[in-house]
Structure formats: structure tokens, C-alpha cells
């Protein structure tokens, strides 16, 4: 349906939960205010930690993160990625990752519009 497969992009980012508010602010300023957020846990370069229950230690290697999905058509992808990086960066392992994915098509449920218009 769409001529160019790369017209619509999905940016998927995994960030620290306490950075969500700054990232939201950054995305809004970059012109990509629409987003979906999920609580997730995952394992990356952040070191595992030990906790204890009644003096018995256990290792926690899955860390709580926020998964953020953001689909753009007109807004430059680089601006969005930069906004996320800028807002979510602490310089410590565990800041997360950003992935950019081609989106084949989009449909707006209310109007039935398709393609970049739907985004």
C-alpha cells in the first residue's frame, strides 16, 4: 500500500523507569508526543545485584525497565532517537537501548486513514 517502506518508523526504547518523565518531555519537544509505555524486566550490560531474604542471598539479574514504543512518519527519526538518548542517559550501565524498525503500514482505527497520514 505504501510506496516507501521506510516512510513510517517505530522507535522502540528500553529505559530506566525513573527516566520516563524526562524522556516524555524530550519526545514532546522533538515533535513525537504519542507513545506507548510498558513495564518490563530485562538483562543487558547492567551488573546483577544481590538481595537477601531472611539472610539468604539471591542474585537479581533481570532489572526493571520501561519499554517505550513511538511511531513517527514526518518527524525525523534521528531527532527522536537523540531526544531519548539525551533524556535517558546517566552514563552508567543499564541506561538502555533504542531500536529503530521499519513499519510497513499503519491504520487509524477511528478514521480508517492509512499510511503516514494515519500516524
Amino acid at each position, binding site marked *: 500500500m505504501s510506496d516507501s517502506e521506510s516512510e513510517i518508523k517505530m522507535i522502540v526504547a528500553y529505559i530506566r523507569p525513573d527516566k520516563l518523565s524526562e524522556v516524555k518531555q524530550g519526545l514532546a519537544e522533538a515533535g513525537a508526543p504519542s507513545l506507548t509505555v510498558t513495564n518490563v524486566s530485562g538483562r543487558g*550490560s547492567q551488573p546483577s*545485584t544481590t538481595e537477601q531474604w531472611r539472610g539468604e542471598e539471591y542474585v*537479581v539479574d533481570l532489572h526493571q525497565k520501561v519499554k517505550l514504543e513511538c511511531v513517527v512518519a514526518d518527524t525525523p527519526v534521528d531527532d527522536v532517537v537523540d531526544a531519548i538518548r539525551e533524556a535517558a542517559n546517566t552514563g552508567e550501565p543499564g541506561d538502555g537501548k533504542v531500536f529503530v524498525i521499519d513499519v510497513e503500514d499503519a491504520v487509524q482505527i477511528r478514521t480508517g486513514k492509512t499510511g503516514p497520514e494515519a500516524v
Partner: protein
Amino acid sequence: MVDVMSIADGVNTVWVLIVSFLIFFMQPGFALLEAGQVRAKNAGNVVMKNMMDWSLGVLVYFVVGAGLASVAAMLTSGQALDVGAAFAYISSPGNWVGWLFGAVFAMTAATIVSGAVAERIKFSAYVFMAIAMTAIIYPVVQGFAWSGGLLAGSGFLGQLIGTGYQDFAGATVVHMLGGVAGLVAAYMVGPRRGRFDENGNPRPIPGHSVVFAVVGTFILAFGWYGFNVGTQASVLTANVDAETLAFNGAALGRVALNTTLAMGIGAVGSTIVTTMQEGKPDPLFAANGLLAGLVAITGACVHVTWWGALAIGLIGGVQTPIVYRWVVNNLKIDDVCGVFAVHGSAGAIGTILIPVFAVAGFSATQLAMQIAGVLVIAVWTIVTTYVALSIAKGVWGLRVDEDEEELGLDRGEHGIEAYPEFVDEGVVTDGGVRTDGGEEVEE
């Protein structure tokens, strides 16, 4: 003319009623304490067990338990057996406040067991155990220690040793009995899946709310004032001939002060131990230590000096994390809420130490009686718990099956979820895999 007897009886009865309500209020304390220490998928089952041991227990204790306590006392003190007299309270309204006061102690003993066997015992087996506790196991010990039976000065063992057993408000009669029964039950039911790995090394199974556990602890401590201070049941003593009333302020003051000091230093003691062992102060063990300090002083509070109460409470708190570790590492028993360390060993130690710190001075005869009494109660509890749970095992089985344990007892036993909007598989404690190439970092 003033009827001093009626005034004293009235004041004392109202006091006993109030403390009975306070002791009853320990039930929500236990419910929160135990629910907090289990995973969310078993929280509804835990509170259901707490409700049923109270609700069924009061019925059983009315029809059977309270009378059996008197029968046990008659049979072990050379009194003539009079079953009619033992059960006369059932048709005697004047005895019903006293019955309630006895009942709230019995239910406290019964409910302690549930924390030890949480997250895997069959509901039917638990209900049967609660009935056995309130019908026979606890009432017999009550009769031995408090109704003039075996351990009392008038009982066979008391006469033999030459003095009666001292356990003022039930450090052993209630708490050690519950703690020992819990340990035996936890041993017979077996550990939760995943509590020990294939080499027998313990793996922690964190509970779902330390906050619940701590709030439950405070509620228990509040109710404990009824337990200890309320056992000083005579606020006023009437002298009918002289038409005077004596106020027992000193006795009330001693139990109130000793109870408070022991709970404070119990929490401090266990916190110091966990800070030294684990590097950080542990709120759950602080809560356990507070309760262990209370348990330890429960039998002693009327008998010992205030500095003796501090010593007993400190020992009660300090031994809690140590005994808990020993139960896990050496006995390999999965006592989920640590009821043996909190109620069992703390109650035994505190009660044996009474003659050491007694206001009346040290007595070797009393010490011998204390040790003998603790042994009698412990052996009776171990044997009867074993018999009761063996019957339950034969009739229903003790454990839920593996699938149900994984699913959670809330859904398996009751068809509900305590937190239907928060489905959570909980913390994974499988050891984890390093992905960053570095050393583990303390949080």
C-alpha cells in the same frame, strides 16, 4: 454498706473482657504477619487458615477443649475425676467470661502453626490440625500448667520436684507449644518446592510484603499487652470483712514494664545480630526479634526484675536469627515464618531463665521444675502433633500436589486470587547469569 466484692468482681471482669478483646486482636496481627511472608499467590489461603482456626477453634474449645483442660488437671494431680464438674462451665453463665479469656489463648496457640506450614499444606489437613490443637493438644497443657494438673504445685510432677511450674501468661503453654507444633508440622509436610536445591542448599523464597509483616507485628505487640498485662487479672482485691479494696498497681506495673522493655530490646538484639551477619539491618528479623522478646518475657513478666526482663528479652531477640538459620541449614526444615525461632525456642529459654532473674531470688528447685516443665510440654506437643498429622496424612494427605503449589493455593484450594489485578510470578531467585563480565554489585 458497700459490697466490696461486687466492686472488685465488676472491675476485674471488665478488665478481663477488655484484655480478651485485645488478645483476640492478635488474630489480624498473625494474619498480616504471615500473609506478608508468603508469595502473593498464597496470601488468600493464609488468611483463610487464620480465619478458620479462630472460627472453628472457638466452637471446638467451647464444646471440648475447656472441659478437657480440667479433666487433664484432675487426672494428673490425684483429684477425683469428675467429668460433670469439668464441663459445668457450659451451663454456667458466671464462667463464660473466664471461658472467653481461656479461648483467646487457645486460638493464639493454634494459629501459630499456620505460619510454619504456609504455601503447601492442604487446607483440609490444616483444619484438622487446628481442631486437634484446640480440642486436645493445647487444653491438656493448659490443664497441666494452669488448672492444677501435672506441672502445678498440686500435680504429680510438681509434688515430686517440690514446686509448681512458672509460666505466667503462656510463653511455653501457648507460644512454645505453637512453635514446636509448627516445627513438627513443617517437617512432616516437607519444604516448599524450590526451598532447597538438589544439593540441599537453601534457596530463599521472598514473601510479598515486608510492610504487612511489620504492621502485623505491631498489631501483635498491641494485643500482647492483653496477653501479659491481662493475665494479671485482678486489678482490685476485696477484703469483705474489712470492707476494703486493695489495688494491685505494683503487679500490673511490673508486667506492663517488663513486657515493654523485653519487646524493645528483642528487636534491638535481633537487629544487631542481622547487621553483623548480613551487613545490613533486616526489618523482617527486627520484627521477629520484637516478637521473640515478647514471647521470652511472657512467662516471666510477673516474676522477674526489670533488668531481668531486659536480659530475657535480649536473649530472645538475639537467638531468633541464629535459631532460624540452624533450623534451615541443619534441620533442613522449611519453617516459612520462623515460628520455632520466634515462639518455640524464645518461649523455652525465657521460661527456663525465670528463676535466674526472679525478684524472689534464685531457686535451684524452681530451675529444675522449669526445665522439667519445658520438656514435658515439648514432648507432649511433638508426639500429639505427629499423631494428629499422621491421621490427616492418612485421610486427606498433607500436601497439595505440585501443580497446585506452582499455581498457588489461592486458586488451587479456594478458587480465588488475593490480588486479581496484580498477577505476578514474583522474584526469580535462580542464581542469574552474568552478562556484563564484571563482579556482582551489592545493591
